[in-house]
């Protein structure tokens, strides 16, 4: 056991002394999250809006003026009703619309409460969310101005409808995607490289001649990367909760457990690559081309699997990241429990065991 800890300590020295790699290791997830989170949710400025004012009264006119004055919106045109809104949407230039019902101010004055409808073209969910949020806050502003000298407050209730993509699919899907991507990269590539490096420098031979068990050599290589990867999972989750406002709807321990499982899958994959390759360059190329690319293409994170041709859909099933991506999405976004993901979990376990078995076998062949 002390031999084992000696070995793990040494692995940490390697990792912690290689500043450049360390920077990539911990910087990458942060950068990816920020890029995906912000670069893709472009700030909304002068967005075109259509307004259907069926009320045409004092209050609706005041609100329209307020929208016009804001730097976020530019009124494209005024239309008469809901049908016309959809026609405009289909032209594709306008992404959001506001609809005042006919008896808007009457409701507001007599019942102290009136509804407006916000319609958004949600094919780009991030954009749609941003637009509806801005619009709601303008309404909110107007409402509080209205209520300044008012005993019984008026309430303007916006009813938001996301057209074409009601569940906002794809909105925050990138967080589970980035998690799968980062773990794949860190675990597969880093483990593969660190083991192959020992082969290249000749230290592996010395280790194999020592009484230290070969299997333990491999295991103690994997443990530091397991820990580092968990740190990465932590930092991604913190960023998504506190910077992107994407809460973890399901159970955190379950999410961490599933992540650990996926990390182990990736580590096994990295070990397998390292056994089969002889140089760091080859190991890196195989990890990048052979692992990262399929992960991006087939995990469903960038391209929806259900739109792919059948043969590609079949191939996607052997990509571990696909299953992890589904699991994380279910836990984080849909807030589901283990009963919803046990099948995916089982598949991941299966892939891991399979990889572990063939790694062990080829490792033994190499030794003989």
């Amino acid at each position, binding site marked *: 056991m*002390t*031999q084992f800890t000696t070995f793990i300590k040494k692995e940490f*020295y*390697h990792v912690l002394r290689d500043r450049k790699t360390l920077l990539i290791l911990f910087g990458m997830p942060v950068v990816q999250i920020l890029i995906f989170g912000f670069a893709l949710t472009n700030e909304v400025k002068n967005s075109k809006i259509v307004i259907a004012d069926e009320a045409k009264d004092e209050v609706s006119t005041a609100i329209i003026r307020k929208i016009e004055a804001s730097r976020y919106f530019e009124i494209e045109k005024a239309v008469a009703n809901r049908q016309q809104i959809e026609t405009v949407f289909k032209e594709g230039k306008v992404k959001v619309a506001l609809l005042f019902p006919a008896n808007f101010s009457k409701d507001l004055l007599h019942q102290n409460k009136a509804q407006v409808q916000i319609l958004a073209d949600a094919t780009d969910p991030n954009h749609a969310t941003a637009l509806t949020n801005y619009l709601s806050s303008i309404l909110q502003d107007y409402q509080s101005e209205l209520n300044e000298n008012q005993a019984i407050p008026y309430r303007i209730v916006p009813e938001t409808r996301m057209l074409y993509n009601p569940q906002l699919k794809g909105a925050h899907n990138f967080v589970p995607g980035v998690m799968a991507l980062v773990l794949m990269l860190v675990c597969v590539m880093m483990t593969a490289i660190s083991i192959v490096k020992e082969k290249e420098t000749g230290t592996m*031979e*010395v280790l194999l001649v020592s*009484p*230290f068990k070969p299997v333990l050599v491999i295991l103690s290589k994997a443990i530091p990367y397991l820990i580092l990867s968990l740190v990465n999972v932590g930092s991604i989750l913190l960023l998504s909760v506190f910077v992107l406002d994407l809460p973890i709807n399901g159970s955190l321990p379950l999410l961490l457990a599933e992540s650990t499982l996926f990390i182990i899958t990736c580590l096994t994959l990295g070990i397998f690559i390292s056994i089969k390759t002889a140089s760091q360059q080859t190991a890196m190329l195989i990890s990048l081309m052979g692992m990262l690319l399929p992960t991006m293409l087939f995990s469903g994170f960038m391209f929806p699997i259900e739109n792919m041709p059948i043969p590609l859909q079949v191939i996607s099933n052997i990509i571990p990241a696909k299953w992890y991506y589904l699991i994380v999405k279910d836990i984080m976004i849909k807030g589901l429990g283990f009963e919803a993901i046990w099948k995916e979990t089982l598949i991941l376990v299966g892939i891991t065991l399979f990889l572990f078995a063939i790694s062990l076998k080829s490792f033994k062949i190499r030794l*003989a």
Partner: protein
Amino acid sequence: MENHKNGRGEEVSIRADKLTKQYGDFIAANAISFEVYKGEIFGFLGANGAGKTTAMRMLCGLSTPSSGSATIAGFDVYKETEEIKKNIGYMSQKFSLYEDLTILENIRFYGGIYGLSRGELREKSAALIARLGLQGEANKLVASLPLGWKQKLAFSVAVLHQPRIVFLDEPTGGVDPVTRRQFWDLIYQAADQGVTIFVTTHYMDEAEYCNRISIMVDGSIAALDTPHRLKQQFGVASMDEVFYQLAREAKRADG
């Protein structure tokens, strides 16, 4: 160990008997037989591809022989590889230290995986650093050491756990003859303390430092004796010529 003695009462450290390794049709090591005695410096020579590395890997327990038998420190290469590993040290041509670890960390790591206790490690690493005169350097990265020092350190690390036999695979590649001579002083010190040295080399000046040498040609041992007697036998003045006479008969391509 008492039952591992030869006729002259010398203790046998390594005994190989018709040791063979075959890969498909290719016989990398063909029925090699020899004995190495305790405290002896045994040189293992041969052109590239002659089968030195294959033979050495079998003796270290890194690969299983196809046929023949061998004992290392009295342990069988088929059944007792774990015991063999505890009793041997190994240094490869790449001197196998971690460049991004300090001298002290390297010593502690290698001592650690051989199961030395904390106390032993502290004591031995201090003694080793003092012997090599590296007191000021102990916390510097190995990468900053000159090649000659790295090799001396690698050798000292290979014998840290007091093995009975040390295998050195072309340990002095790339250093000048003076540094090589200094390196050999360390080898002599170890041999004087009863450690058996098994060394492969390309350098004929190094061959002269060995007690006995064997020369492998095409997977077989073509000659085995003291450097002095080999020179007599071939009627030449230097080991270079002995080697050349044997090696030019080789049929295997240099590789």
